[in-house]
């Protein structure tokens, strides 16, 4: 067999490979050669490029939306946020129990009449904007005003608000959000001082709020506290 014959053999083999005509065994053997022979790889690429005009015969058709959702579910299974995982670890450390200073009492008030001059704010939002809560804090009065602009608790569940103070090891519950979209929460002084530079978060919890003092459900939304 001459070198030219060998080359023609490779041309035919690379063409068969590009057309996907080989059976599994032949394919494996050819792929082992491909790993070792750049020239053969180049020949396969060349074949695929030269045959590509035949792909005009594949008429585009929009796939049903469910396919994309399935692909995302396979590749990116819903994982709790990183912050949430950190909370889990910290909860196990016992620090959380020390720092969770007890469930605060919500003080539903009429937000309108009292003068409210916030200097800190946080937009606590879900990534997909399915839940957006605007929080404003007025240090003089210690009032944290909550304005839920989008989203609500799931049926039979509640939304619980948490403060992760700057440098803190664990979140502290600021209480369960009421059904009303607007409410004021009076923060005790220790928390009022900790809110600046912190992060507010909302988790999905059973009725009555987290039974453990740390978030037990998914963290739905997060937002950093910034100066106004």
């Amino acid at each position: 067999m001459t070198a030219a014959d060998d080359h023609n053999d490779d041309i035919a083999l690379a063409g068969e490979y590009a057309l996907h005509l080989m059976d599994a065994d032949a394919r494996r053997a050819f792929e082992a050669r491909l790993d070792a022979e750049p020239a053969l790889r180049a020949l396969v690429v060349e074949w695929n490029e030269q045959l590509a005009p035949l792909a005009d015969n594949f008429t585009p058709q929009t796939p049903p939306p469910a396919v994309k959702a399935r692909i995302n579910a396979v590749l990116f299974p819903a994982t709790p946020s990183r912050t949430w995982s950190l909370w889990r670890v910290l909860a196990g450390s016992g620090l959380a129990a020390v720092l969770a200073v007890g469930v605060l009492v919500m003080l539903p008030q009429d937000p309108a009449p009292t003068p409210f001059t916030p200097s800190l704010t946080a937009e606590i939002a879900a990534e997909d904007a399915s839940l957006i809560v605007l929080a404003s804090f007025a240090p003089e009065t210690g009032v944290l005003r909550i304005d839920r602009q989008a989203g609500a608790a799931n049926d039979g569940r509640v939304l619980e608000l948490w403060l992760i103070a700057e440098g803190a090891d664990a979140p502290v519950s600021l209480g369960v959000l009421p059904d009303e979209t607007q409410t004021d929460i009076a923060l005790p002084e220790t928390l009022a001082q900790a809110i600046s530079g912190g992060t507010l978060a909302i988790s999905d919890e059973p009725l009555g709020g987290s039974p453990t003092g740390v978030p037990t459900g998914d963290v739905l939304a997060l937002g950093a506290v910034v100066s106004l």
Partner: protein
Amino acid sequence: MTTREDVENMILRVGLGDRAAFSALYDATSAKLFGVCLRILNDRAEAEDALQDAFVRIWQKADSYAVNGYSPMTWLITLTRNLAIDKLRARKGGNVDIDEVHDLKDTGPTPEAAAVAASEKSRLDGCLNELPSDRADAVRGAYIEGYSYDELAARFDVPLNTMRTWLRRSLIKLKDCLS
């Protein structure tokens, strides 16, 4: 209008694990790739599965794209077509039902807006036309319908080994003409 450069950039970004780019790549190319799966598998549910497998593979293999030398659509179509053909072969279990073998004449080219340069297309057509027509049809059938050697032999009513020899010689001639 998504350009070749757009698709190329999306693939490169997917190779870096960029999910937004992956979503954009899906939106830009899934209709074409679904067309590939539908044509080869001729079954909607199987075509959807093949498309899903293709995009999972694209996510996993995009990081090798930059060095493999392919133009972006050729790479995507080649990957998808091979997966769809694997599914087709698995379904048929290697047995060819003559009734299932489509008449190549009935499934001839249905041109769409050419994504590939017209000159390349006419060059391929010109070179295929230099082959005896049944051999050119065999090459087209292998590419467009994903026919195996068994199916091609059945369709053209020749022994399997004859079909192999035919096709290999045709490929050598074709390459000579294209190069």
